[in-house]
């Protein structure tokens, strides 16, 4: 009864919520949370495809790579947020208007 499509629908909604977050947030960390939601949706999608393809290995490996890339993305993005905070004393995305202060 639980088919591939039910997982795909769940991840589509998860992806859209993340995209909405990226579109409308003004707080940099809020935007980052949206990115994490999108990456999560993608990795659930890959594992779902792998599972309904006879427990394929490649989908699992891809989702592992995705998790590693999400970790490095979070580290770099938070470092950028910290240096923006030092420069502008705020982390609102609309306040950071110049690359070199």
């Amino acid at each position, binding site marked *: *009864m*639980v088919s591939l*499509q*039910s*997982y795909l*629908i*769940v991840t*589509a*909604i*998860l992806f859209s*919520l*993340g*995209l*909405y*977050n990226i*579109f*409308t*947030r*003004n*707080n940099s*960390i*809020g935007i*980052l*949370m*949206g990115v*994490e*939601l999108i990456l*999560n949706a993608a*990795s*659930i999608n890959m*594992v779902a495809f792998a*599972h*309904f*393809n*006879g*427990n394929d*290995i*490649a989908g*699992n*490996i891809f989702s*592992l790579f995705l*998790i*590693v*890339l*999400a*970790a*490095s*993305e*979070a*580290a*770099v993005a*938070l*470092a*950028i*947020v*910290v*240096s923006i905070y030092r420069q502008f004393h*705020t*982390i609102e995305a*609309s306040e950071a208007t110049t690359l070199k202060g």
Partner: protein
Amino acid sequence: MLPLPEIKDLVFLGIAGFTLVSAAIVSFSRSIVYSGFALLGSFAGAVGLFVLLSSDFVAATQLLIYVGGILVLILFAIMLTSKIGDVKLTNLSVNRKIGIPIITLFTLFLLSTLAKGTWLVVEKEEYRSMVKPIGDALLSKYLLPFEVVSIVLLGALVGAIVLIKREVK
């Protein structure tokens, strides 16, 4: 008479609903602290979905890296939010009038595409542990991407340290 739902369907519905409700709180809450803790629920729901998809190793990795690492990083960064005591002001939404229609249309498009498509499903075998096949594949077929991703991770960590250490006059 409708067929009775199996226990697996109920578990799936529960976990999926939990994940989506947490993600909705992340997206719509006006306090960034609430968003951060709802993100924890969303990640934990993803762990449940991985377990349902009989992918134990990915579930464990998700639990370790997302819940243990990334979420702690994000909660740490939330402390940077100015006016954090003022719960209503920390996570404002801008451009809501434009954003909601675009996202609604996009979601409907995605869902209709998913409903129309035909998906080839291979008959799956019984549950087996994925740890050993994943380890074998990582060290044979996917050895080069595995090494490359470790270099990417090293570069990202060094880059993060360099960015943080830079002095601002």
